[in-house]
């Protein structure tokens, strides 16, 4: 069964544990600037929103790469960058509609989320379960559950 990162912004406190876990896993150091997941602060709204690659089934980045450096990981469904092949042309960073593939000037390659090979560090580090790693077909489960609870309340009120 494939799993997806599932993000619930309402639970996020903006602590950046995910960014540090990501950079530590991938770069061997704590460095939010090199994280594949980013947390955005919407100050006026008082909200924090983590955002990262959704692993498109038909991925623009993969299609756009001229040297086949982005490949499908059949086990996890992630689209992974083969560093040895990447030439740093950045076409994938232009092709991605969501901005989740980015250039790393320290290495001359691009970086993107690869779900840590099926055990994403960001989800493990999140203290509030704002980021979870769930059945890829059930990312709406929590929201459906919440609406189901509301409809139950409606039934109870009219019963």
């Amino acid at each position: 069964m494939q799993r997806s990162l599932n993000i619930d912004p309402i639970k996020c406190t903006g602590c950046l544990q995910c960014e540090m876990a990501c950079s530590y896993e991938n770069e061997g150091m704590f460095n939010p600037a090199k994280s594949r997941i980013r947390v955005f602060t919407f100050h006026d709204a008082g909200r924090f929103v983590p955002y990262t690659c959704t692993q498109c089934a038909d991925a623009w980045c993969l299609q756009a790469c001229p040297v086949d450096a982005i490949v499908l990981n059949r086990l996890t469904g992630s689209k992974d960058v083969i560093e040895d092949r990447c030439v740093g042309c950045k076409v994938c960073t232009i092709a991605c509609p969501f901005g989740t593939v980015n250039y790393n000037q320290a290495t001359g390659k691009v970086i993107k989320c690869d779900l840590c090979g099926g055990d994403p560090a960001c989800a493990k580090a999140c203290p509030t379960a704002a980021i979870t790693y769930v059945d890829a077909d059930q990312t709406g489960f929590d929201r459906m559950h919440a609406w189901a609870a509301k409809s139950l309340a409606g039934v109870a009120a009219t019963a």
Partner: protein
Amino acid sequence: MSWTGKILRVNLASGAIAAEPLNPEWANLYLGQRGLATKYLCAEIDPACDALGAENKLIMATGPLTGTMASTGGRYSVVTKSPLTGCIACSNSGGFIGAELKNAGWDMIIFEGKAPKPVYLYVENGKAELLPADEIWGTSAWHADEWLHKRHQDPLLRISAVGRSAEAGCLYAGVMNDLHRAAGRSGVGTVMASKNLKAVAVRGTLGVGNIKDPIRFMQAVNAAKKVLADNAVTGQGLPKYGTQVLMNVINEMGALPTRNMREVRFEGANDVSGEAMHLPRKSDGKPNLTTNAGCFACTIACGRISTIDKGHFTVQNKPEYWGNSGGLEYEAAWALGPDTGVNDLDALTYANFLCNEDGFDPISFGSTVAAAMELYGMGAITKEDTGGVDFSFGSAEALAKAAEMVAKGEGFGKDLGLGSKRLCAKYGHPELSMTVKGQEFPAYDPRGIQGMGLGYATSNRGACHLRGYTVASEVLGIPVKTDPLVTEGKAGLVKAFQDATAAVDSSGLCVFATFAWTLEDIAPQIDAACAGSWTPETLVEVGERIWNLERDFNLRAGITAADDTLPKRLLKEAANAGPAAGKVNELAEMLPEYYTLRGWGADGVPTAETRERLRL
């Protein structure tokens, strides 16, 4: 290791900027942040100097765990000589700029001299330059933040800035960072503004990777995160209510200083409590509190993000205050509320927003307003002084107006910006100033919590709860419950809290984590990250060394044992209600024992033996 090993030295007078190596021997003796910056300050300035003169220096310092994944590891401190107290000033802040500075490759920045014209420091990894700040001088810290992000076309910049209150000379102005976090106490922002330094903007992309034993570090970090998550205070109480969880608790035990500490219980406490911040308001059905927020790396997330009711008199036709911003923490809520007798949650939130926008300490501000209200009530201050404002206790209008005047340094705001001690002296009643060494009290009445009285009297930065939070033991039972009304054993308790806290404040971690963590949880994280050997015992020793170094600074600045005291009101006027009714603070029963435990003479001076033991 874990330190970057680099200090940025900025001479504001000449514009010279230089990198220099961190003194590793001092790092081993003083750890980082509060301790290490104090060591540098003591070595480089005359403690008797004019705090607002060019000879004072200002240090922004991170700790070795700042910027790491250790929970709460995002702290930095601003260390300088205080213009409010004349003592050492060390104000600690969370948010994100501390970690950013570390990511840019710097352990600390030392500012010296005074710039001929307003400037800000721009740091981008190894590059640092002073740039003109004329366009943001005379504007708020919030405006400076917005302008700097636009000017550098970089939404990821992290910024510390001073507001208009600091520029106007308010003696309790802080250094704001990330809009609503603050190195808030003792006037560190006033010193920064006196140097014509408006802001520090930092972008760091180098990462923090210099960990001694990464595998052991991650094990220690994960174990410590679990301790925070499993603890009722750090795992549930603080995320839900913030420090405001205390408002009703402290009021119940009759230790909530009310109306300039005349009383110990506030009838409106519940109206301005953490619980009240969750209640839907009548106008739009939304609660004051939108969400909780974490500082960098913090898995507790006690921060409050709030809104003000758009229809409230303070923000009518002022849409700039209709969005979310940093909400009330307990100490701020107390100073702005119970101490002034105001029970209007929206008015308190508005005053708090202004404290953040223009960078002034809500504790000192609220306490000073409270003193002004008492003086007004007895006729020592009149409408002629206040610009026509009725300064009666309980007036939300006066509170809001006072905040507006202090923010801009206008009118009666000039007097209020002097702080309670100077204000009360100016109007002929120095005895009404609720301060120690010139700094205003926080939110725990020492008649009802005896140990806090000793803590306030001996705090190296004047009255303060964060130098030794014996409330943890005397009220919450952490690590063990002690009776708040007795003095026995409190000297040892205060010393233990002061020493441990000094070490935590020097690590990059947040003292709020110690609601759940002991040094047994903290030491393994430091030891796995840093060169050297770090145990709970070495941390206590480092903490005690720091405490004595700060004491030494204050003694050289002219402070004496006579300053280790409390206002007469707390020593002579008994609490009027609650469990502590009839009690005063029995400081005299505790102080001699404290000096003895500290290894100080009866004159409050560390003995030669103590100095040698601590390698001072």
